[in-house]
């Protein structure tokens, strides 16, 4: 019997494709965000409000994942930006191959901001790199304050937590401060914005965060163009 050392990631095929996607996004100056939450936390509503409120000159594209139906894409298309539905047909997460396939018909030069809405699930999407610049986790006040402790992986891997539905805080026994403390227990220093997609409260903070990340993504993109050998080619 011979023991052959392997020492490589189980999802190395996915990670390789994700790295190629990330290099392409950098090359084209695209900020790509991967939005993750439980079903019903308000990812699609957050995207709807984001598309409404972003400056018109921002060229946004959206990939929205679901197990079944085109409902989310139909909702988001109303804003007039390019939207594609990824129907996974049963799979509980998106992977890099699905992103690559659904981007094929778009010209990346025409996109500044690519928003990916993952399948509603706090577990599986955390394992799959989609080539995004950052993961964003959405939690809503109708869930439990302890969700960050129950699903530490996704709260640790996300750079921002959007606490949604804060207009309902007077009516539900949810302590937003405790939820934020729990998020920062799992992920010290995690950035957090409180929003309500119903009233529009706090959305400026979310848009400012996107703009900040977009500027830093552009800096990375320029560095990439200056030294294209630094990352895998597109």
């Amino acid at each position, binding site marked *: *019997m011979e*023991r*052959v050392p*392997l*020492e*490589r*990631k*189980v999802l190395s095929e996915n990670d390789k494709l994700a790295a190629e996607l990330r290099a392409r996004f950098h090359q084209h100056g695209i900020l790509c965000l991967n939005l993750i939450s439980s079903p019903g936390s308000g990812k699609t509503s957050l995207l709807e409000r984001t598309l409404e409120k972003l400056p018109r000159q921002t060229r946004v594209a959206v990939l929205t994942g679901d197990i079944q139906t085109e409902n989310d894409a139909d909702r988001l298309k109303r804003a007039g930006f390019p939207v594609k539905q990824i129907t996974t047909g049963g799979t509980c997460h998106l992977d890099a191959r699905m992103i690559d396939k659904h981007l094929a018909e778009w010209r990346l030069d025409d996109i500044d901001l690519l928003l990916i809405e993952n399948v509603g699930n706090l577990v599986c999407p*955390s394992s799959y790199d989609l080539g995004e610049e950052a993961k964003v986790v959405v939690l809503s006040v109708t869930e439990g304050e302890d969700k960050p402790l129950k699903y530490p992986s996704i709260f640790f891997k996300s750079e921002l937590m959007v606490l949604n539905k804060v207009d309902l805080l007077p009516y539900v026994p949810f302590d937003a401060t405790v939820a934020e403390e729990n998020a920062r227990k799992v992920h*010290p220093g995690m950035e957090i914005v409180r929003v309500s997609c119903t009233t529009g409260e706090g959305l400026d903070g979310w848009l400012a965060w996107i703009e900040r990340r977009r500027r830093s993504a552009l800096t990375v993109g320029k560095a990439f163009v200056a030294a294209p050998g630094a990352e895998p080619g597109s």
Partner: protein
Amino acid sequence: MHEMGIACSILDAVAKEVRRRPGARAARVGVRIGELAAIDPEALRFCFEVMVQGTEQDGLQLEIERVPRKHQCAECKQEFVICEYDFRCPRCGAVSMDFAGGDELELTFVEVSEDGASSAGAQGT
């Protein structure tokens, strides 16, 4: 519940390794799973066992090594395991630190025997 997909990726990697060694048969495969990997080891084991049954990989054993969340103190460089979300360095008490492991989902080894024909039990009853 993405453990089925993970099990499939592990079996693909094993099959690839076996193909490089004509006549060989894999007996055991090792994976390392960090506590932040979002993988349930028991669910993974269940999926793995279901997937190998009745295939030419029947009998392949899965060895799971679990890895805790580790950080390294930014001040004194001590590496330590995080328990109960206590992020203070146990040596110097500093709270500034870098992530040092715990999100692994890695293949560590595959054990192969060259006498594939003698141990082939692919069609178990």
